[in-house]
Every structure is written in structure tokens, then in C-alpha cells.
């Protein structure tokens, strides 16, 4: 008998929490991927994150300096109530999850069976795999999280000590075991000698598709002592990425009272400064074969800075004598990751895509598991893109730029 009452199923997950399985958090991303046939196309995610503090006990075992290593191990084993040894995370880290409203940003405390770990080799691979498979991502470039602040560490050598330990741990425990995960290796940029050593040690490591400078630092990228670093990368054909971050203790940012306001500005400001120095000091002319990737500042800043720099340069070309064309022309030859993509003013988004030549220069990035992550549908659903541009941005541009066979 037709009662007019249809049977329904109940989803047992009423509320997503820090204990929810990544596959359940991302169930709708999986649905989006199925609806758009993402499994049939190549998707490369050029910026996702690993929460290295969860494996810190393992990572510190790779520290070279025996005294620092002993201190780190002693602290992990016997001291409570302090953040992981050596890290100088910004105080703003405690606000990222909006007071518990965005659980996957706060923690991923989901259940992982020993059998799953055994199968793939590491708990962090299980977590990454759950997420990248849900989003139909074929290749994922992974970066650490609180280590993005190491450029501001008061102990000058700590960036290199921890950076190298992390790189070694990542190669042995992640990159060698999961061919879908790659990285642009952490470059201890405050110390050019260590940066050079890092390129020599890891340039040929499995899964190393480039090197990454954490943009939060007070170091001028045009300083002469970095030229040998750029040359080493250019010679090896390895792209250089500037991964943005925030720094609330920056004197200007200290006027801001809310995390979101600070985040909106600071995540862009670091790359605005580095890009300006990069262009006006003619680094694209000095290293024409070095591809540069600007990571995690969104895109709106690029069209703004293009206008600012072109306007200034035309009046004051004597201050930038190495330039043979407009700043914006150099900028549209560089690469950008899209996340967090600003889409609330869609005409501005479209114009920005045009100005940066997104069809060949833009790279999809998820930033999973952070609070402002973007699924691949964010690119796919843009109303102004043709199909070829979508395929390029989601994977083909990255395929041309990086050697994913490593």
C-alpha cells in the first residue's frame, strides 16, 4: 500500500568533531568528485599540510646535533605542559579553528587501525590518503605546519637543525613509502650556507620536486648571499616556492585584535614584500630559468600588486634598472597556487585569472586540513573557465612544472 510516506536513511554522524574520520568529514567532497568525474582527470594538489607535531617524537630522532637531540628527547619523554621542543609557533595558532567551530583544523583524532598503518607504512600516510582519495587528488605536495614559523626563531641555527631533521624524517617515513605524496623541501633560508647544503643533500631525494622558503621572516630575498642558492636551484631545474604564513607579532599586525583580520593581511603581506623585492631587483632577469611559485596567499593580492608596481616602475625606472619589461609582465610568468581562492566578487576573480595568465600559471592547491581549504570543485565550478583551463589548473600546469616521477 502506498502510504505517501517515503522511507529514509539516517546518517549516524550527527555532528562532525575532531574524532570524525576524514572520509566522513569529506564525504561531500567525494560526492562532488563523483558528480564531476574527477577520477578520470589528473589532479595535483600543490599545497597540503602535515601536522608534524603529531610525529615530533620521531622527527627529533633525526636531529644531527647530539646535545640538541638529547634535550629534545628529554623534553618529549619527561616534560609536560609545553609545546614540542624547538618550535616557535605564533600565538595565533590557537585561534585557527574559530573556537572549535572547524574541527578538522583543531585536530584529527580519528581512529586509525594498526592494520591500516602496517599496510601503508605510517599513520600520517593513512590520514593523508583518506583525504586525498576523498578529493580525487592524484598527487599531493605536502608541507609542515608550525614549522612555517621557523624563519622567526630567535635561535639562528634552529631553523636549519629542525628543517634538516624534518626533511630526513619525511623522506624516510613518508616520501619513500607513498609515491602520491611529494614535497618542496624545507629550505633553512636564514642561513644561506645551510640552504645550499640542504639543496645538495635533498635535491635528488625521492619525492623532492622543489624547495620551499617559509615567507614569514625578515630577510631580503635580493641579498647577495642568496644568489648561490638560486643558482643551485636553477642548475638543477628545481622550482622555488615561497610559502606564506602569518606573524601576529609583526609590529604592524600588532594593531589588529582579531585573528581573521590579521590572517587576511599577514598571509599576503609576507609574499607582497618578497615579490616586490624579487621583481624590482631584477631576479627574474638574473635567474631566467628558475621557476618561482607563490603559495597560499590566495590571488587577489597579485592583481593589486601588479597595478601598484607597474605604476611605480614607470615613474622610477632608474630604481629598477635590470627590468626590461613591466613588473606585471614578470609576474605573469611566475606560478601561483590558488588557495584560498577569493570568489565572492566573481568579476574580480575573472580579471585576476586573466591578469596572471591562469590558464598556464595557476596551480590547484587544497591546503587540507586547514580551516580555509579548497576542494578541486572550487576550480571546476568557476563559471568563466573553459574546460582546457580547468584541466590545466587542476593538474596539467603542475605536471609541466614539476617532475612527479621522482
Amino acid at each position, binding site marked *: 500500500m502506498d502510504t*505517501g*510516506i*517515503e*522511507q*529514509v*536513511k*539516517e*546518517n549516524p*554522524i*550527527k*555532528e*562532525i568533531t575532531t574524532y570524525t574520520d576524514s572520509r566522513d*568529514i569529506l*564525504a*561531500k567532497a567525494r*560526492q*562532488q568528485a563523483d558528480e564531476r568525474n574527477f577520477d578520470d582527470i589528473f589532479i595535483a594538489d600543490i599545497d597540503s599540510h602535515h601536522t608534524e607535531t603529531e610525529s615530533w617524537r620521531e622527527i627529533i630522532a633525526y636531529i644531527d646535533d647530539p646535545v640538541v637531540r638529547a634535550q629534545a628527547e628529554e623534553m618529549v619523554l619527561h616534560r609536560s605542559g609545553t609545546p614540542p621542543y624547538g618550535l616557535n609557533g605564533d600565538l595565533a595558532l590557537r585561534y585557527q579553528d*574559530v573556537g*572549535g*567551530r*572547524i*574541527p*578538522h583544523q583543531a585536530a584529527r583524532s580519528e581512529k586509525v587501525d594498526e592494520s591500516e598503518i602496517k599496510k601503508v607504512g605510517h599513520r600520517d600516510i593513512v590520514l593523508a590518503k583518506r583525504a586525498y582519495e576523498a578529493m580525487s587528488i592524484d598527487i599531493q605536495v605536502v608541507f609542515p605546519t608550525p614549522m612555517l614559523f621557523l624563519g622567526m626563531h630567535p635561535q639562528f641555527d634552529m631553523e636549519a637543525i629542525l628543517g634538516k631533521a624534518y626533511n630526513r624524517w619525511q623522506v624516510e617515513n613518508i616520501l619513500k613509502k607513498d609515491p602520491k605524496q611529494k614535497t618542496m623541501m624545507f629550505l633553512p633560508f636564514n642561513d644561506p650556507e645551510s640552504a645550499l647544503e640542504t639543496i645538495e643533500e635533498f635535491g635528488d631525494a625521492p619525492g623532492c620536486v622543489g624547495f620551499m622558503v617559509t615567507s614569514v621572516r625578515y630577510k631580503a630575498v635580493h641579498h647577495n648571499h642568496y644568489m648561490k642558492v638560486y643558482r643551485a636551484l636553477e642548475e638543477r631545474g628545481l622550482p622555488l616556492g615561497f610559502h606564506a604564513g602569518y606573524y601576529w607579532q609583526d609590529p604592524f599586525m600588532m594593531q589588529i585584535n582579531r585573528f581573521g583580520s590579521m590572517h587576511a593581511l599577514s598571509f599576503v603581506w609576507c609574499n607582497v614584500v618578497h615579490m616586490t623585492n624579487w621583481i624590482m631587483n631584477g631576479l627574474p632577469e638574473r635567474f631566467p630559468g628558475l621557476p618561482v611559485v607563490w603559495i597560499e596567499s590566495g590571488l587577489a593580492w597579485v592583481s593589486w600588486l601588479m597595478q601598484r608596481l607597474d605604476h611605480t616602475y614607470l615613474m622610477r625606472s632608474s630604481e629598477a634598472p635590470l627590468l626590461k619589461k613591466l613588473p606585471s609582465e614578470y609576474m605573469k610568468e611566475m606560478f601561483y597556487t590558488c588557495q584560498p581562492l577569493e570568489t565572492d566578487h566573481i568579476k574580480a576573480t575573472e580579471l585576476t585569472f586573466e591578469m596572471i595568465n591562469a590558464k598556464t600559471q595557476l596551480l590547484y592547491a587544497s591546503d587540507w586540513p586547514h*580551516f*580555509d*581549504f*579548497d*576542494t578541486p*570543485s*572550487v576550480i571546476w565550478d568557476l563559471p568563466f573557465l573553459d574546460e582546457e583551463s580547468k584541466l590545466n589548473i587542476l593538474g596539467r600546469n603542475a605536471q609541466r612544472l614539476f617532475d612527479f616521477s621522482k
Partner: protein
Amino acid sequence: MADLYVGKTEEFGDRDRKIIAQGTLEIGVFHVDGEFYAYENNCVHQGGPACQGKIINRVEEVIHETEKTAHGLKFSETDVHIVCPWHGYEYNVRDGRHPGNKNIRLRPFKVEIKDGEVYVVV
């Protein structure tokens, strides 16, 4: 038009919910302060599972009426929000609307209570 059976009213505690599904259509049914509300579990932002997020009162800023000075934050005594767990868009549980843009709204469904049973009209 069809009625989807959700459950008995007594199965819902205060600030409780159920997420029901028929095919690919998922609906969050909320019980807040004695009333029932239902919305599609599909966030306006990027299609995230908005109805599976935190239920929390709206945050308000305390401003002195005449001096316009700020005196901290407090939770609203009346407005209750559902927060999308993907990126934090907040929606008022009573009308499904975002506090800063009334056009950003979860798709609402009518809820009917018949003989102590909860139905959603789709």
C-alpha cells in the same frame, strides 16, 4: 511532494538533530528551544556538510549605547547558529540565513508534527 519520516518527537533532546537522507538529498532536522527546523545539508559556500556542524549561540559584541565603546563579546540569549564544519559559515537555525548576508541561506524544508512524529515535507 512527499513526507519524509524523521522520527518521534521524544527522540529529540534539546539542541538535538538528525541527519536524514533520501538518495543524494540530505536534510538536517534540528530541535532547538522546543521548535523543529529542517535544512538541506549542503552549505552555500562550497557544498560542505553545514548541518553536521556545531550548534552554538551567535556571538555579539557589547557596545555602550551612547558612548559606542566596545566592552567585549558575549553569546546571544536568543540567536542560535549552526556552523558549517568545513570553513565556518554560520547560519541562524530559525531561518537558515547567514548573519552578514541574508541571501546566503540554507535551503529550508517544512517540518510537520503528526501524532508525536516528525516529518519533513520535500
